[in-house]
């Protein structure tokens, strides 16, 4: 909300500078978005008289002007505009001036002709978004005068962001009241001279059948007005406050609203048939809003009706046909209090925001309903003529803030409690500030009774009083004090992603929502997806059930930017409906990896190498080992989005904790990734914590190692082979592993040569040649029996 400094001064004789006022506003809780200085912004721009005008010898569209700005010699100015003539008065930016758009005026030559200044349009003075040609000033403008002063530009305009609880400050007087109270200055009285009533004008006939939502409604007929434009001073005020002038009547009502905070409405009386009734909608009524929308209304909406239908969505917008036009001669003025929650709900349903609804939904001052009616009537008659009826009053302003017994709102508080919870003392002298803000206070020892003014809908409990004290004393006066701190040991930090990062992966964070088609890449269609009602876009419309689509996008993004390989890790949640419990869902914490392209670069010690399945498997295994866990990788060809033969389930203990594999080639190529992509995902919630190892004595006697090489069929898994070795070699076996794998020349198709190294050890004696021979024979026999594998060479 924009508040011109001069308008504030109509309510309180402020003496501080605009910047001091801005600081005071911030301290009082009104956020200052900006302080505009329109007058200072055009210092150096003076009224000039065009003494002569000649065409530029070398440019058709330029003119050579001699401009008198009151100095001894007229200025030579080259000007590109065409709407000026000799004898016109125009704003001239003299040398050294910096215009609001940042342009600094310097002496220069334009197409060979000297120019010592610049003639300005409204746009260049920061007065309009766009303009056609120079601003031609009135003939009586004093030559040489500063244009900013001559045009009475504001010294300062405060752009404020009013918090939703302070509806009372969505007007100039409300802000003025806070500033006056704070500075110890009196708030000027409003001009409340009585309206001259013409008893021959019939009163507006009004009934209210929705008293709950409309506790006060006032209406008045004014006949015989002539709607002309509002006077220039009013238009200037509105423009500086950020409002567009519309027509005389509407401008008066907007001025009243900005000044006092009471939104009003005027109906063209000749378009209203019969009496006015304020009621709740039954539902289904149609309404042609002033903004051009055609609405079908919902039951409960608060309406202003005439005999023929809805003439206003109360407190939000009038109807198009009943609006005031240039041709209007008779009007009905409305001033009312509508229940904030009602206005808020209706406005939200129709996504309709108006200056009126913004004020009604925050709560207007019920005591201002009559005042605004009186001020508006006087102003309209003064400016546009006409004669006014009596005011028709429905309801009672006093009922708005009254409690059940009819008394006005009071808050009982304890001074010491407030002091304890703020951490400062509340000197009695501060009470005066609150009194100037409209509160009535009574201290009785520690007990404090506060009567709340009608416009402060936000104050109803002791904590609200506490806040009032805090802001008038100043939050900066509250000391910085550390509370007593507990000595609980910090919980163990989740190291999941840190460990992966330590192993060389870059952590990424992707949005938790993906597109529906991305969801289907790795998760088959079922009814467990959680979709958003109002997504930003289709690409962000479904809560992810796998982290892989996000990682794939990250891989694509980076590989499109000349990265030859990526190793990524992401930790976060995946989301799905809970199958068992109706209307509930699960959020599962997962960690996921992606590797693609070069894992090793060309280097002085070796050549570049692309990631394969075992790079990622190794990383996942190492990660599990760090948490004291062991994973089993079970080949599984049925996993959505992964290539058969290069994908596996990951079992940890008995639980299926994750999956790993190569992304289906079609998916990768659809993302323009031409290197194999490997992904893994582990459900962190499914992991148990590894057990801490118990001590086992270290062997005292040396062990022996044996290497055996067999020819296996390719389909045999190394896990099965090693398991068979373990059971065949007996109790002395301490380790068995594949130390060599070869399927090149000399190995028949469909076969592979695997070297198995196993170690034997006994805790009680040194092993003999016989021991290892026996074990070897057992292994050879087992390989033959179990897999038909032949010992090589």
């Amino acid at each position, binding site marked *: 909300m924009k508040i011109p400094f001069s308008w504030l001064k109509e309510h309180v004789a402020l003496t501080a500078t605009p910047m001091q006022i801005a600081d005071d506003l911030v301290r009082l809780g009104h956020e200052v978005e900006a302080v505009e200085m329109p007058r200072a912004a055009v210092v150096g721009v003076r009224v000039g008289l065009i003494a002569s005008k000649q065409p530029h010898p070398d440019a058709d569209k330029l003119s050579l002007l001699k401009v008198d700005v009151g100095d001894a010699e007229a200025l030579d100015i080259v000007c590109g505009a065409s709407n000026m003539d000799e004898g016109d008065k125009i704003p001239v930016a003299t040398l050294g001036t910096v215009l609001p758009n940042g342009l600094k005026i310097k002496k220069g030559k334009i197409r060979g002709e000297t120019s010592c200044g610049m003639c300005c349009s409204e746009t260049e003075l920061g007065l309009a978004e766009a303009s056609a040609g120079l601003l031609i000033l009135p003939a009586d403008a004093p030559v040489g005068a500063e244009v900013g002063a001559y045009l009475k530009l504001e010294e300062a305009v405060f752009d404020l962001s009013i918090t939703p609880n302070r509806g009372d400050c969505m007007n100039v007087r409300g802000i003025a009241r806070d500033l006056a109270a704070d500075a110890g200055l009196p708030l000027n009285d409003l001009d409340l001279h009585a309206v001259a009533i013409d008893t021959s004008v019939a009163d507006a006939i009004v009934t209210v059948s929705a008293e709950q939502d409309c506790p006060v409604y006032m209406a008045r007929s004014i006949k015989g007005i002539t709607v002309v434009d509002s006077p220039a001073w009013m238009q200037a005020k509105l423009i500086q406050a950020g409002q567009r002038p519309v027509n005389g009547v509407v401008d008066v009502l907007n001025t009243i609203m900005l000044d006092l905070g009471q939104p009003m409405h005027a109906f063209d009386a000749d378009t209203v048939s019969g009496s006015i009734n304020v009621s709740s909608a039954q539902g289904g009524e149609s309404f042609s809003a002033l903004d051009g929308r055609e609405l079908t209304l919902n039951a409960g909406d608060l309406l202003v009706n005439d005999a023929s239908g809805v003439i206003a969505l109360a407190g939000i917008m009038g109807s198009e046909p009943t609006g005031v036009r240039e041709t209007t001669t008779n009007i009905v003025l409305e001033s009312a209090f509508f229940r904030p929650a009602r206005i808020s709900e209706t406005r939200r349903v129709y996504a309709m925001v108006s200056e009126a609804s913004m004020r009604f939904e925050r709560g207007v001052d019920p005591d201002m309903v009559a005042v605004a009616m009186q001020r508006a009537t006087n102003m309209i008659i003064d400016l546009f003529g006409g004669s006014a009826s009596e005011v028709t009053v429905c309801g009672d302003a006093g009922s708005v803030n009254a409690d059940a017994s009819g008394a006005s709102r009071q808050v009982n508080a304890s001074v010491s409690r407030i002091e304890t919870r703020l951490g400062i003392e509340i000197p009695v002298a501060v009470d005066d500030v609150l009194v100037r803000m409209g509160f009535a206070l009574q201290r009785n020892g520690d007990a404090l009774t506060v009567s709340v003014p009608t416009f402060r809908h936000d104050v109803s409990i002791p904590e609200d009083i506490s806040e009032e004290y805090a802001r008038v004393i100043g939050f900066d006066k509250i000391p910085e004090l550390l509370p007593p701190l507990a000595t609980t040991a910090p*919980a163990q930090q989740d190291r999941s992603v840190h460990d992966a990062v330590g192993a060389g992966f870059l952590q990424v964070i992707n949005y938790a929502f993906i597109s529906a088609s991305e969801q289907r890449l790795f998760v088959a269609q079922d009814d467990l997806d959680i979709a958003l009602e109002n997504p930003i876009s289709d690409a962000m419309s479904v809560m992810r059930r796998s982290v892989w689509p996000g990682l794939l996008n990250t891989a694509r993004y980076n590989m499109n930017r000349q990265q030859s390989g990526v190793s990524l890790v992401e930790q976060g949640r995946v989301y799905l409906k809970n199958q068992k419990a109706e209307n509930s869902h699960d959020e599962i914490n997962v960690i996921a990896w992606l590797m693609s392209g070069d894992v090793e670069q060309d280097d002085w010690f070796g050549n570049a190498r692309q990631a394969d399945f075992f790079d990622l498997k190794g990383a996942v295994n190492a990660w599990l080992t760090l948490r004291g866990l062991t994973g089993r990788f079970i080949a599984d060809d049925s996993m959505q989005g992964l290539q058969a033969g290069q994908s596996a389930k990951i079992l940890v203990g008995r639980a299926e904790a994750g999956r790993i594999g190569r992304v289906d080639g079609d998916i990768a190529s659809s993302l323009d990734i031409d290197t194999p992509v490997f992904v893994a995902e582990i459900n962190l919630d499914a992991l148990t914590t590894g057990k801490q190892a118990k001590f086992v004595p270290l062997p005292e006697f040396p062990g022996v190692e044996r290497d055996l090489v067999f020819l296996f069929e390719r389909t045999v898994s190394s896990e099965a082979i090693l398991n068979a070795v373990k059971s065949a070699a007996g109790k002395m076996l301490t380790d068995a592993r594949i130390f060599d794998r070869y399927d090149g020349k000399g190995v028949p198709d469909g076969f592979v040569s695997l070297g198995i190294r196993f170690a034997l050890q006994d805790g009680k004696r040194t092993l003999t040649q016989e021991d290892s021979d026996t074990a070897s024979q057992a292994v050879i026999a087992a390989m033959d029996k179990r897999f038909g594998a032949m010992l090589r060479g």
Partner: protein
Amino acid sequence: MSEIDSLKAQLESLQADALNAFAAAENLNALQQLRVQYLGKKGALTEVLKGVGKLPPADRPVIGQHVNATKSALAAGLEACETTLAEKEKIARIEAERIDVSLPGRTKGKGALHPVQNGLDEISMIFSQMGFVVAEGPEIEDEFHNFDALNIPPEHPARAMHDTFFVKEMGNGEKSEPMLLRTHTSPVQIRTMKRFLAEGGEPPLAVVAPGRVYRCDYDVTHSPMFHQVEVFKVDRDVSMAHLKGVLKHFLSTYFEKDVAIRLRPHYFPFTEPSAEVDIGCVFCAGKGCRICKGSGWIEVLGSGMIHPNVLQSVGIDSEEFSGFAFGLGVERLVMLKQGIPDLRLFFENDVRFLSRMGVNK
């Protein structure tokens, strides 16, 4: 010349030849051959000894002494040359094995924590060390926890300011309670207090709740998903001075310098009094710059004393207990600390950005 003199002369010349030969040996191998040549079974010294038998017995002991002296001299000469050569060979070997230690080591790629993760870790750690317990909550929330319990009733204007993502109907049957993506981490405050009380706990309760939050707003300065940390403490006589003390300690620790803080009165439905918190601009030390728009202050978070309605909604007696709460935007703090100009960089996940700005801890 007598026999004995001749033998003596032979021994002398042998010793001189041998010592010269030892000194001239180029390596240990050559030296070994010389040892054999002079001291071996068929060596030069043995040859000389053959002449001893021809001597008269009285002369033999005399020549014996000469032989032993020669033997010792040769052995000593050998050992000295051996030491010198071994030293020389070691130096040569070291020289031959010299490497360029400035060549890069073998690595497994450079991992890095996402800067937001690092921010979350740092922030949580500071509060953990102050005795705040880490808590989490669901990201898909109901309206009660996200709004109602936080003193934001349905018609409240503040609801509209939250730009809430709603989730499509999750139940199959009759109309179920609307669910949404939490717009702040404050619902964790409600859930944690409720759980704590249900488990029989009684304040003091001090909690730090990091997590992801969502707002339906997407432009240069807004991301539809971002990270917040909610911090609150409930106890007897918790005061606004405590809030300021904790904020000051936290912000100074996080920014690794003594930062000035400023509280401005503001409005949040779930706190009363409420305050926006500014820090003295970390870029210009409060002098006024482009980042702080010349004000010398930068807004960093919202805070306040927990509204009694919020305490009551979870069953805490607001007469007996009070509390403070604040919620901070992690991305914003990280941007300020690391000088990152654009929020969107965090979620673009450009590896060049991540490996430069990220931390590997």
